[in-house]
């Protein structure tokens, strides 16, 4: 499986699809929210070939995000503190979403908010949209209200998801934070309140300091760590949630840069995965990884059959 020999532009019939909360994915590999923008990625590959596209978190109104610098490098990873800059849900509904649907993509719309009202407003606006799934981001470490604080407490999270649940029939994925003591109680709260699926993990809080100045590199001081470095940690979270909740669909996220790493998530019990940081330093990585996984599944018919039916290895 040499990357050298991989031509991601060759015509390819997907051999191994999956279903996440009933929604068919062409293959088990999606893009991770915040690392995909149609206007940028469409130049590099046919984005409709992905299992799904999780788009950048959208808020009720445009958000400015954090001051710059917003990123620092870390060993086999990166720290970011974008702070959910986005042009707002209205813009998304006329600009990003219809174009993605026109291209034939399966779209997971990532939802951000500073408050329960914010989330509700966005979900209401998306209820009649062509989005295939919603991914409620209660795990962003880079905004001071909402984000991770919502996703760190089972009660707060239960209240939010219970409020959002009746607003839409769309499958609702809740995206969890790794910055918690007990991921299982949080996952259970989300599921009890009506989540159709879970995605995990968002970034881990971290930072870098510039030894020339002694000061943090990122303006926000701390940010979220992603990339290959977090792979074993993220995999451990998926494993623990799957052990505790055998039935909930799970999207595994964190450090995936190869089909082999994606496969580890499937063996840990994920239904599908999303690729984040790898796309930043290698634009076609998500499609390459999907292709690699498609080939790896050839020799794993039992796993492939389960995925095809929306079931999981564990």
């Amino acid at each position, binding site marked *: 499986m040499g990357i050298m020999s991989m031509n991601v532009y060759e015509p390819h019939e997907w051999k191994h699809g999956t279903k996440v909360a009933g929604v068919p994915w062409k293959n088990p590999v999606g893009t991770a929210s915040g690392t995909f923008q149609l*206007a940028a990625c469409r130049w590099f590959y046919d984005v409709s070939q992905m299992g799904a596209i999780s788009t950048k978190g959208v808020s009720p109104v445009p958000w400015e995000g954090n001051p710059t610098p*917003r990123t620092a490098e870390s060993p086999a990873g990166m720290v970011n503190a974008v702070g959910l800059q986005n042009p707002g849900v209205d813009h998304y509904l006329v600009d990003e979403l219809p174009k993605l649907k026109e291209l034939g993509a399966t779209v997971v719309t990532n939802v951000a908010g500073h408050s329960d009202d914010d989330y509700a407003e966005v979900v209401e606006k998306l209820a009649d949209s062509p989005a295939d799934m919603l991914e409620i981001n209660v795990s962003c470490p880079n905004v001071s209200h909402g984000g991770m604080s919502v996703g760190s407490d089972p009660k707060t999270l239960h209240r939010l998801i219970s409020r959002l649940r009746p607003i839409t029939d769309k499958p609702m994925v809740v995206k969890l934070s790794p910055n918690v003591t007990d991921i299982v109680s949080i996952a259970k709260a989300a599921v009890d309140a009506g989540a159709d699926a879970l995605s995990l993990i968002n970034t881990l809080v971290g930072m870098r300091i510039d030894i020339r100045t002694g000061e943090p590199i990122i303006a926000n001081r701390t940010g979220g760590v992603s990339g290959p470095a977090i792979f074993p940690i993220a995999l451990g979270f998926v494993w623990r949630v799957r052990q505790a909740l055998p039935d909930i669909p799970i999207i595994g996220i964190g450090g995936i840069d190869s089909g082999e790493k994606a496969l580890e998530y499937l063996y840990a019990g994920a239904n599908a995965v999303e690729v984040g940081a790898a796309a930043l330093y290698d634009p076609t990585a998500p499609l390459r990884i999907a292709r690699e996984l498609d080939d790896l599944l050839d020799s794993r018919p039992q796993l492939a059959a389960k995925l095809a039916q929306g079931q999981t290895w564990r």
Partner: protein
Amino acid sequence: MSPSSFIPTARAVEQATAAGYFPGRRSVEITDNQRLDEGVYRLTFRDPYIAAHAKAAQFVNLFSSDPLKLMPRPLGISEVNGEEVSLIFAVVGKGTDEFSHLRAGDTVDVLGPLGKPFRLQDDAHYVLVGGGLGAPPLIFTAQQLAQRPDCKVSAVFGYRSTRFADDLVGKYANRVESITNAEGNVVDLLNQIEDSINVDGLTTVILSCGPTPMMKAVASWAQRRGIGCQLSLEERMGCGYGTCVVCVVDTLEGRKKVCADGPVFTAEELGWA
């Protein structure tokens, strides 16, 4: 993630363009690496695609071969000769240090060309105001402008000490003025040459790249004289191609991406005028 894990440039470019896409990250061959000054290098690699498509102020992402260092190192294109592309960079950290040790025959991973170029017109007098490692993209701008017979080009460069870019830009510019930190700054130099800035009745346009305080000073110098001014910015980047929203700058129309909406902005857009 070592260079060899990526497909070589010819294949990558061929495959992508045949399919109608922009070529992704690929491995290119170094053809030359020269030390221009203390800690300043001019690196040349072969990439027919960038050579054919690059425009003034565009940049490329260069990648470390160390898989611990995954993030892009954006570097402005400083010259194109045939199929060969040159960059000029200062060693500031571990990535640029690694690049300084590359030798002809080695490979490096690259993505590009990236960014929106200077908006150039067919007849104007372009004053290229560069500071330090802001000079490289302006050398390429001069090279591009040399193809427009009705344009005139003056380079106004400020250096820390050695005038490492004068000769390089001199190949393409009609006039080269420069100043070192010990002598003053580029605004001093602009003041000195102000009287001769009108050339052949052409509209004067300033294109600038350098440290932010310098560019702000240049923008206000231009504004006071009613001279149009485009600035090429720098910001820490996550992707360099517009997907991560890491590299923003405040403009009058809100925060824009330096990598994909820029790196070129007008002084007006930035509210620096």
